[in-house]
């Protein structure tokens, strides 16, 4: 629907004609539904009823589109996902679904009330136009034609062109009514449709719960996998090395006890080297669990550090004014880090840009690169991991990556900031990564 009130009003009769003709379709479908309803008693009626219900769905979907377009709202499809089952079970599922019966209710309303509403609207509009132009037409094009019968009002016959002029005020009154109330009238009726065609609050909640259950399962899986990884890393890495270290030191001690310090010295050197290796390993592990720079500086600082460590020039535009809650910071950090790593691995880019916004309770992280494009979220891939990590926080990931590039990855996270960001004394001294 156009936003301009005048063009919108002028477009409405067209819409009304469309919906008026669809009420005729509705009436046919309603009649078919009633007939097949009666036929269900005989077995033959059942497949026919399913066919009719499916036809009603098609009609209801067209109604959703038309009404949505007219009111400028999006009417989501209320149907639950169709289960993979035998035909007869699918039929049963179709009949059990509440949305099916709400569609039928709207079908009945649209075939009767809808017919009337659109008829009244179109009549008022028609009367206004017709009686307004009639005198003009009678004295020009239709001079010799007889006066149309619609001018015989029973109590008085406006049978000359001059007399039809007396009907102009009626046309004007109808026109004014059409202008003033016509749109409201149709909108009122359409809102009634939204009530029946849209999902019930129950259905919305059901969908939301199943979405949350999925993301909770993914989070739990992810957490369990992480714990297993940490356990394995500690077991195979640090623990094994420390055991070896204690062995080496034991041997050195023995050599010292036997008065052979020159033979003990290389063992001590070896022990020191092992210490460094263990520390390095633990450092890597800690970075994977919760990077220290994130703990120190929050997401903003960690983003700068990430940009500096990246092999490609990464420019950061950070418009984050508040500190994010800690779990979100970690999610945002790991997601951004994964996307940046992906760019190093696959994109063949020369420039990377990271833009961070915080608006309307939503954090947006946009990563752009000038690489070769063709990035996609495929199951089990890096970007898919990012998507499921973000999903745990109701976040989203969208990828625009035409073949040949450039690539744009947009991540969003709903977030309520925890307060003002702490003053950043240290970072004020040095040039920030913005200049990088």
């Amino acid at each position: 629907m156009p936003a301009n009130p005048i063009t919108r009003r002028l477009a409405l009769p067209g819409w009304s004609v469309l919906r008026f003709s669809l009420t005729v379709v509705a009436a046919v479908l309603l009649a078919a539904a009633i007939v097949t309803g009666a036929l269900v008693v005989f077995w033959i009626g059942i497949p026919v009823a399913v066919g009719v219900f499916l036809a009603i769905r098609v009609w209801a979907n067209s109604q959703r589109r038309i009404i949505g377009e007219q009111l400028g709202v999006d009417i989501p499809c209320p149907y639950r996902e169709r289960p993979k089952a035998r035909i007869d079970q699918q039929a049963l599922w179709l009949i059990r679904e509440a949305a099916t019966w709400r569609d039928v209710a709207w079908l009945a309303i649209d075939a009767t009330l809808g017919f009337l509403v659109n008829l009244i609207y179109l009549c008022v509009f028609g009367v206004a136009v017709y009686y307004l132009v009639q005198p003009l037409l009678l004295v020009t094009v239709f001079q010799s034609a007889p006066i149309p019968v619609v001018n015989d009002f029973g109590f008085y016959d406006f049978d000359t062109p001059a007399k039809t002029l007396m009907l102009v005020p009626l046309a004007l009154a109808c026109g004014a009514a059409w202008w003033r109330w016509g749109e409201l009238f149709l909108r009122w009726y359409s809102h009634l449709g939204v009530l029946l065609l849209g999902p019930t609050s129950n259905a919305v909640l059901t969908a939301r719960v199943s979405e949350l259950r999925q993301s909770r399962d993914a989070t739990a899986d992810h957490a369990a996998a992480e714990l297993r990884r940490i356990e394995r890393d500690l077991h195979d890495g640090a623990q094994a090395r420390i055991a070896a270290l204690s062995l080496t030191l034991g041997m050195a001690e023995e050599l010292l006890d036997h008065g052979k310090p020159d033979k003990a010295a290389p063992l001590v050197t070896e022990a020191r080297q092992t210490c460094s290796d263990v520390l390095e390993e633990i450092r890597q592990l800690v970075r994977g669990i919760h990077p220290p720079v994130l703990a120190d500086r929050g997401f903003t600082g960690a983003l700068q550090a990430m940009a500096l460590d990246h092999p490609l020039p990464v420019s950061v535009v950070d418009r984050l004014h508040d500190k994010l809650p800690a779990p979100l910071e970690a999610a945002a950090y790991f997601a951004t880090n994964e996307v940046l790593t992906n760019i190093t691995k696959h994109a063949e880019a020369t420039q990377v840009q990271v833009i961070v916004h915080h608006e309307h309770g939503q954090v947006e992280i946009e990563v752009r690169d000038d690489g070769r494009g063709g990035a996609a979220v495929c199951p089990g891939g890096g970007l898919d991991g990012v998507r499921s990590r973000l999903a745990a926080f109701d976040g989203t990931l969208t990828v625009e990556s035409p073949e040949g590039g450039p690539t744009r990855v947009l991540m969003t996270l709903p977030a309520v900031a925890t307060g003002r960001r702490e003053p950043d004394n240290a970072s004020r001294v040095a040039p920030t990564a913005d200049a990088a």
Partner: protein
Amino acid sequence: MDVVLAEDHSLLRDGLTRMLEAHDCTVVEAVDNGPSLAAALLKHRPDVAVVDIRLPPTFKDEGLRAAIEARRHIPALPILVLSQYVEQLYARELLGDRRGGVGYLLKDRVSNVTEFIEALRRVAAGGTAMDPEVVASLLGRQQNRLESLTPREKEVLGLMAEGRTNAAIASALFVTEKAVGKHSANVFRKLGLGQSEDDNRRVLAVLAYLEDN
């Protein structure tokens, strides 16, 4: 040499104190938190401070902030920062005032006592001591601009960026000091940096070049 030490783990604090005292250093004060560190630095004005980056009360980058703040009051106050992990971002902030007299090392470098004491003396003398890991990540992102260097010249550049003198580089690479001089001259010519006799200024020029994108 007077040293102020800031480290919150008492075992490490005692160990460091013992090691420093064994190498002609006097630990004038050993503190375990950020605010006392700031006060101690201003009070003693030590020859060098050895500071752990993560200190109470916040257990964030308290030590780094205190160090940078102290250098604002006492310009070029030599400070050697120790940390369990290194970040280019922090190295950048420490070098921000381009004055030298800063060190930034991983904590476990302490285990190589000789090198650690050498780094400490360098910092006290107004030089620089950058951890090889920081230098490696700086070199890593400049690969395009360093293409013209030979592998040996890259090695020299890396050691130079850590803050080592020609003599130290020579002994690390088992070559003569003269050879190092030749390599470093080549490096400076190829990167278009002004030659300087002063070791410290040379190091700062190299670090600035590596940081510059």
